[in-house]
Every structure is written in structure tokens, then in C-alpha cells.
């Protein structure tokens, strides 16, 4: 069918608006990326007016990666993501799987108890006091254990396990498999796509750990990357250029941008996988079991 002139111009307008939105979203990231690779002298000459550097340089990265504070913080965040994610997945899926079995005695009560935790949030002083009483202040585990799972993820994953037919499990039972065997040998392999989606969500959350570190970690040696970034990027821009200035000839701006890039790269690396799975993760919630 032929399109009317009105429809044609609307189609063009839509493309233009979408491109504008795309550029607006993309530009800040692009700018940060480009400046972080700009040669320090070029940056100083052009006063930050850079859309494409004439001379690429790794000076900022070299300096940043030679400081022990930065490496320390990066390794703390990496530890959180690498150790925290599998623990979270095991605990979440174990509980979610059990709660998805109708023969689980007491599951209604447990589900209601979990729902209550989603509706009522005691604020952050009581959890803070709990972590303190457990002696976890300044302990890296304080950034993992209190956030191991959440009611939301348990409920979402449960509705995923609900969709796996019970016959599979009955067959395995007849073959003499117990529940733990069924869980690890049948249910988890069958739910790999869901595990991937939740795993990526958990990994991003652990990598982005910030506020629990503000609460629980007082020792700068143990800071995760996000907390170090806050100190580099934000506190310093209000109080001159303190924080992480270099004695070498590298402007603090390009250093800051390099730090942002390093903190973003892991997310960019998992992003294609995230994108493949996350729509599923989001939509899981709309299918209720």
C-alpha cells in the first residue's frame, strides 16, 4: 500500500527523534571514553574541547594502573562479583526451587513471610546495627552476606521453576535420585538461561556495590571500586583537585575519565549477554505461578 505524505514525514521525524535520543544517551559515554585516551598535553591545550583526539595516549591508564589504591579497589569489586554471584545463585535457586514444589510442607507460610519482607523495609539503621553486632564491620563479607538474595529474585525464580514439568522429577525419583540430585542434575541444567540472566544481574549488582560499603567499610584499603571512584570523582570536584592528583604531568580530568572507563568496561563486556537475557528476566515477573 502507498504511504501518504503525512505518514512519510512522520516516519522521517521519528527516525530523527530516535537518532537524537540515541546521540544524547551515547555522547556522555563517548566523550568520557575519548578524553580518557587523549594525550595529556593535547587535553591541556584544548581545555577539554575534544571530540576526537589527534594523538592517542595510554598515559592516564598507565598511571592509574600503577597506583596500588586503584588496583586494590578493583580487586575488591572483582572479588565481590566472582565470589558473590555463585553464592547468590545457589541460595536463591535452592530456596526458589523448594518453594516451587507443592509437596514442600509449609511453603505458603514461607511465601507469605518472604512477601512481607518485600513490602516492609525496616530502613537502614537496624540492618547496620545487625552487621555491627555480627562483627562484620570492615570485613569484605559484609558486602556479600547481607545482600545474598532478595524476596524479589526468589519469587521470580520460583515462577521459572514452576514451568518445569513435575514428570521429569518423578522419573528421576523412580530412578533413585534424591532431591539434591534432582536439583543439581536436572533442574539447574534445565534452567541455565534463567541462571545466566540472574547471574548477570547479581554480578552487575556486586560490581556496582557502593552504599553498603559506605556503611560497613571504613578502611580505605578495603574500599570497592565504586567507593574509590566517588572519592576521586565527586569529593574532589567540590574541593579543588585533591583526592588523586598525580605528581606527573597528567591532568586529573583525564585520570578521572580513565577511572570511569575502567569501572565501566566489565559491564560493557557482559552487556551483550545481558541484553540477550534481560528482557526475559524482566518479563518473568509478569508471568505469575
Amino acid at each position, binding site marked *: 500500500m502507498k504511504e501518504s505524505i503525512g505518514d512519510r514525514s512522520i516516519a522521517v521525524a521519528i527516525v530523527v527523534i530516535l537518532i537524537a535520543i540515541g546521540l544524547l544517551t551515547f555522547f556522555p559515554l563517548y566523550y568520557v571514553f575519548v578524553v580518557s585516551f587523549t594525550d595529556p598535553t593535547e587535553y591541556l591545550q584544548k581545555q577539554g574541547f575534544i571530540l576526537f583526539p589527534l594523538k592517542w595516549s595510554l598515559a592516564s591508564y598507565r598511571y592509574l594502573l600503577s597506583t596500588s589504591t586503584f588496583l586494590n579497589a578493583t580487586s575488591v569489586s572483582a572479588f565481590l562479583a566472582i565470589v558473590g554471584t555463585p553464592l547468590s545463585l545457589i541460595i536463591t535457586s535452592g530456596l526458589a526451587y523448594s518453594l516451587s514444589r507443592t509437596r514442600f510442607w509449609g511453603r505458603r507460610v514461607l511465601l507469605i513471610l518472604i512477601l512481607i519482607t518485600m513490602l516492609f523495609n525496616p*530502613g*537502614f539503621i537496624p540492618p547496620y546495627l545487625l552487621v555491627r553486632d555480627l562483627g562484620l564491620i570492615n570485613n569484605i563479607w559484609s558486602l556479600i552476606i547481607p545482600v545474598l538474595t532478595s524476596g524479589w529474585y526468589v519469587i521470580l525464580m520460583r515462577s521459572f521453576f514452576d514451568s518445569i514439568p513435575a514428570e521429569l522429577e518423578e522419573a528421576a525419583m523412580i530412578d533413585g535420585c534424591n532431591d539434591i540430585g534432582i536439583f543439581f542434575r536436572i533442574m539447574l541444567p534445565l534452567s541455565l538461561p534463567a541462571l545466566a540472566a540472574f547471574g548477570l544481574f547479581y554480578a552487575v549488582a556486586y560490581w556496582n556495590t557502593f552504599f553498603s560499603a559506605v556503611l560497613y567499610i571504613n578502611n580505605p584499603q578495603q574500599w570497592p571500586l565504586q567507593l574509590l571512584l566517588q572519592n576521586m570523582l565527586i569529593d574532589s570536584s567540590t574541593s579543588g583537585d585533591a583526592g588523586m592528583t598525580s605528581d606527573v604531568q597528567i591532568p586529573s580530568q583525564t585520570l578521572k575519565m580513565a577511572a570511569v572507563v575502567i569501572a565501566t568496561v566489565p559491564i560493557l563486556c557482559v552487556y551483550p549477554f545481558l541484553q540477550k537475557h534481560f528482557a526475559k528476566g524482566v518479563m518473568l515477573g509478569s508471568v505469575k505461578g
Partner: protein
Amino acid sequence: MQIMTAQKSSKLAAASLKRRTAQSNLKRDKYLYLLALPGILFFLVFKYVPMWGVLIAFQDYSPYDGLLGSQWVGFTHFIAFFSSEQFPILFRNTLMISLYNLVFFFPMPILLALLLNEGRNVLFKKVIQSIVYLPHFLSWVIIAGISYLLLSQTSGIVNQVLVSFGMHKIDFLTNSHLFWWLLTGQSMWKDAGWGTIIFLASIAGVDPALYEAAKMDGAGRMRQAWHVTLPAIRSVIVILLILRLGQVLEVGFEQIYLMMNGAVSQVADVFDTYVYRNGIQNGQFSFSTAVGLFKSIVGLLLVIIANRIAKQFGEEGVY
């Protein structure tokens, strides 16, 4: 009398049978319980212990005496909070930030989803989608940091561009009139794209025959979007709107905490930042727990009301 005892004994029998089956169920499914155990322990320790912990809002809690030994003071902290001069300011800031979010941020994903739906070229759509979903995964620290790098008055590129066009510099980060806009803008950049997913999914469920029929009746693209696409996502919009209303007191704490500075504190201070300052930094545990509890209870009531309304609209609600 006999019938009564007979009934009673049969009831007792049923009860003991039930207990027996419960026991045998526990025994039969012991591995299932073992799988659930770490999760259950987590919820007990990290979700339910803090729920008892809110009781310190009614005490003069001292860490040495603990929850059991501290003195009970009733509603003293609540009264002190409601009569403090900070209370109306916190309330106004929270509501205004929420209102800005509701009016300016909330419609964005809907508009963007409609635009994306109209895009014809699949590759083009994929590229735009990949770009606008990305910021959702960046932490608030990164986003605040990028904001400082781009908008700072001394070295930010935005102000340098303004100057090169002969305009004045704008103090984006320290102007109390611009602060709520700044927060809304950041939220849009981070989450407007991500928010489209749920709308795009429900648009995808629309029967193509409806568009064909609309075309037959002479509807152009605008009218198709208005009469076919929009009604198809109306129920999603309604339920998200109601749920959002239930979250009115939930303003992005990390975001505000990161963007707050002395120049904007009068418009930036919200319940959570107040709790953080008084509780964690000044150690007034009981008082700030009371403030947090007030916020939680109002929030809980709002969610319950919102859920009721959602159900009256024929939607499923959250529980």
C-alpha cells in the same frame, strides 16, 4: 454428648494424622528442606532480625545495653521528629522529587516505546535499543561522576560550549533551582530506555490484524498508534502508575546522596539522607530508626492502597 466426643476424637485423630503426615513429609522431603535452608536462614537473620530491630525506635538505644536492656521511651522520638523544623522540609523535598519523577520521567519510556515501535528498520531499532538500555547497568557513582565531569563549572564541556557560544556558564551542580531537574534528567538518562522493555513486550502482543483493519479504515500512523497501540498498553501503564504512586516516598537515595552538596542541601535533603546523617554519622540510632520507621509505615500503607486500586481496575496487583 456421645456425638460430641465422637466428633472430638475424630478431630483429634485428624489432627494427629495431620501431624504425622507433616512429620513424614518433613522426613520424605528432607533434602528439599536442606536446599531451602540457607535461604530461609538468610531471610530469618537478615530480614526478620532487623524487623525486630525497629523496636529501638521506641527506646533510647545504647549499644552497650542492647535491645533488651535499653530504656523504653514510647513515641518520644516520633514526636521530636514531627515537631522538628526539618520535618516539613524533608517532606516537601521527597514529595517534589517524586512529583518531578512522576510528571517528567514516567511518560518517557511510554513515548520512547511508541517511537521505537514505529521504527521500520530492524537493525536501526536494535542499535538504538542497545544504546538506550545500556545506562541502566551503570552505577549511580558512575553516573554522578560523569555528570560532574560534563557539567562542572570550571572544566565541564557543557559549560565550555556555552561560553564558546557567548553564553554564561550555568552552575548545574550547585544551583538549588536546578537540582530537582538535574535528578530528573539523570533518571531519564539512566532508566528511560530500560523502562521501554515492558511496554515493547506488550506492544509485541498486539494482533497485527488490528493494524490491518485500522489501515483499511484509512487510519494513518498517528491514528494507528493512538487507537491501536496505546489502548493495548493502557493496562500496563495504569498498573505501573499505581505502583509508582505507592512508592512516592522512595526517592533514589544513592543518587541524591551522591549529588548532594552544601549549596543544594535545602532542596536535596530527604528522609533517607536525614536518617543516614543522624543515624550512621551522628550515632542517634533510636531517633533515626524512628524516622525510617515512619517512612516505612507510610510506604507500606501507600503500597497496600495502590494494590487495592490496581485490583479494582481489574489488574493483578503485586500480591
